[in-house]
């Protein structure tokens, strides 16, 4: 499907323009980008169709016909499978976008959306809510429990993720230095993670819920969740695209970017905030789905190297396709049982990335 030339051969050198060779390289690159977008679009559509067909009977044509004949299909597809399918696409897209932003801001291909304490913060919040309502059974903290129940797991995870990033920013005293920010993120992750462990020990009820949250799940996504996710993506994507030139400048190095007249700390803070909002929204609805945010930008960069304007959008699409594929597999492989979707994304995304590395050689 892809031309045999290595992806880097197509990377345009800045400053080299006007020659026929560069024009050809540019054309080839554009063609590659378009092909990837088209491929991802087709995959998204095909997987969505599968997502509507795959239910608790697995991917079974006869079960689908049976449902259509019984008149169950409208409710099953309209209320369960459609929002779940769209929700998986949107959560994956938010994570893919967040991953591309993270890797751009930190100029590090190992960066992922869960880097700055958002994952640990969200986990801690989820465990705290469950522990509070479990303790309420022993009449210890009825007020806290009532509060926790109103907030719900989704709200708690959202606030927890934002709180984790907020704490990281506080410890790093803003976003002036990348290294300080990353270190603060690691420290916050470890600290909040330890607190969550402690709470889990004290309240065994929280153990399974915590595990489920950390593996991620698309099983209970409904229309309200889809509406929230869609709104979030509709707001975040244009903002991210508007900052693409900053991320492009950052690829030249922080000094070069600053010499272009960019106020880096301010931009970094804005991008970290955007990254945190995307991650918190996705994580609140579907848990800590592994690997999507890390692998989606890599797939795009390897298949169609390009500037950030394209990378951000294509990473979102790739993330959505990856998570939806994982979701369809998760609900059909052992139906009517489910595999935790995070395990499937790790296997799918990791496997594909390894295959790409093997094909192109480790760079």
């Amino acid at each position, binding site marked *: 499907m892809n031309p045999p030339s290595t992806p880097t051969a197509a990377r345009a050198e800045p400053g080299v323009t006007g020659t026929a060779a560069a024009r050809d390289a540019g054309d080839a690159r554009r063609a590659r980008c378009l092909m990837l977008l088209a491929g991802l679009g087709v995959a998204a559509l095909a997987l969505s169709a599968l997502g509507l067909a795959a*239910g*608790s*009977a697995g991917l079974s044509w006869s079960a689908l016909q049976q449902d259509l004949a019984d008149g*169950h299909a409208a*409710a*099953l597809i309209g*209320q*369960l*499978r459609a*929002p*779940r399918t769209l929700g998986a696409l949107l959560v994956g897209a938010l994570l893919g976008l967040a991953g591309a932003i993270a890797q751009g801001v930190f100029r590090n291909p190992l960066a992922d959306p869960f880097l700055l304490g958002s994952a640990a913060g969200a986990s801690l919040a989820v465990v705290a809510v469950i522990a509070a*309502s*479990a303790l*309420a*059974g*022993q009449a210890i903290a009825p007020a806290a429990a009532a509060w926790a*129940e109103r907030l*719900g797991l989704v709200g708690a995870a959202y606030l927890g993720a934002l709180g984790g990033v907020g704490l990281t920013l506080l410890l790093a005293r803003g976003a002036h230095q990348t290294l300080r920010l990353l270190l603060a993120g690691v420290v916050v992750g470890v600290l909040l993670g330890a607190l969550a462990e402690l709470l889990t*020990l004290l309240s*065994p*009820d929280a153990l*399974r*819920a915590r595990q*489920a949250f950390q593996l991620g*799940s698309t*099983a*209970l*996504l*409904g*229309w309200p969740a889809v509406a929230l996710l869609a709104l979030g993506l509709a707001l975040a994507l244009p903002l991210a695209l508007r900052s693409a030139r900053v991320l492009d400048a950052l690829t030249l190095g922080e000094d070069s970017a600053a010499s272009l007249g960019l106020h880096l700390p301010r931009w970094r803070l804005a991008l970290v905030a955007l990254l945190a909002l995307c991650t918190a929204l996705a994580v609140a609805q579907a848990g800590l789905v592994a690997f999507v945010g890390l692998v989606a930008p890599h797939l795009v960069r390897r298949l169609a190297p390009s500037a950030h304007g394209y990378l951000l959008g294509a990473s979102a699409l790739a993330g959505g396709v990856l998570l939806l594929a994982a979701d369809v597999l998760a*609900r059909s492989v052992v*139906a*009517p*049982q*489910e595999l*935790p979707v995070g395990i499937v994304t790790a296997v799918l995304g990791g496997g594909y990335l390894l295959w790409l590395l093997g094909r192109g050689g480790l760079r």
Partner: protein
Amino acid sequence: MMRTLAAVLLFVLLSAAAGAAAAAGIRIVDDRGVAVDFAQSPQRIVSLLPSLTETVCALDACDRLVGVDRWSNWPAPVRALPRLGGLDDVQVEALLRLRPDVVLAALSHRTLARLEALGLRVVALQTERHADVQRVLATVAALLGEPARGEQAWARVQQQLAQAAARMPPALHGATVYFEIASTPHAAGADSFIGQTLAALGLHNIVPPALGPFPQVNPEFVVRARPDLLVAVAREARTLAQRPGWAALPALRAGRVCAPAEGPAWELLVRPGPRLGEAALALADCLAALPAPLPASPQ
């Protein structure tokens, strides 16, 4: 040469003496298949699992317990005992200080080998299904030197199970049920001890045995199965109707949801121990009290 011979002779004599002591004492084969010998019935017992704690107390030997795990909370006297941590974080030093004659622990307990290396006698037991509860009652009763009590306790459980089945309204006979143990959603399948209790109550579990004891199911599976009855912990039961597509479930519309409160009421249902029969009675009472009558059974 003579010295070696003497040593061998001494060893043989000692082994014979030990064998005689074991023959006079108690030999327990635990669920690992390990034989553990006791010169006499242990008087100082540590239990590291709530259902084993309950088993010891159900056999009238609560006073022999000297320490329990963090989650053991029934019957009331065990709450005053020293706490020795949870499944994965046993406080070994505190446990040693109690000088127990035997430690009862779950088969999956991480520290079995460590405790044995420290010279403690460990009996590892597995309580997963009704038959396990019966076997564990017999094993622990033998350990206590009171084998008859084990049979009595199991007879009581069976009697309670029969009583519970008798309390079920005839209209619920053969009704379909979904028992959720976690909102992920994880169900209690027909192949779990909860599933066995539901079957004893004459109910039909929508989660078949082939899926294993506690499978994570697709929420759509429940919507499609349209169970007549739902059982879930109160906290989750309140939010079931908000799950996509669940509001239309007949059981939710008619309020046929049994929702025990977090804490003791729920723990009674989800602990595979000697209170199995009591749990069946509680479940039967809860189901019998549900408001709406069932519609003519939809087959």
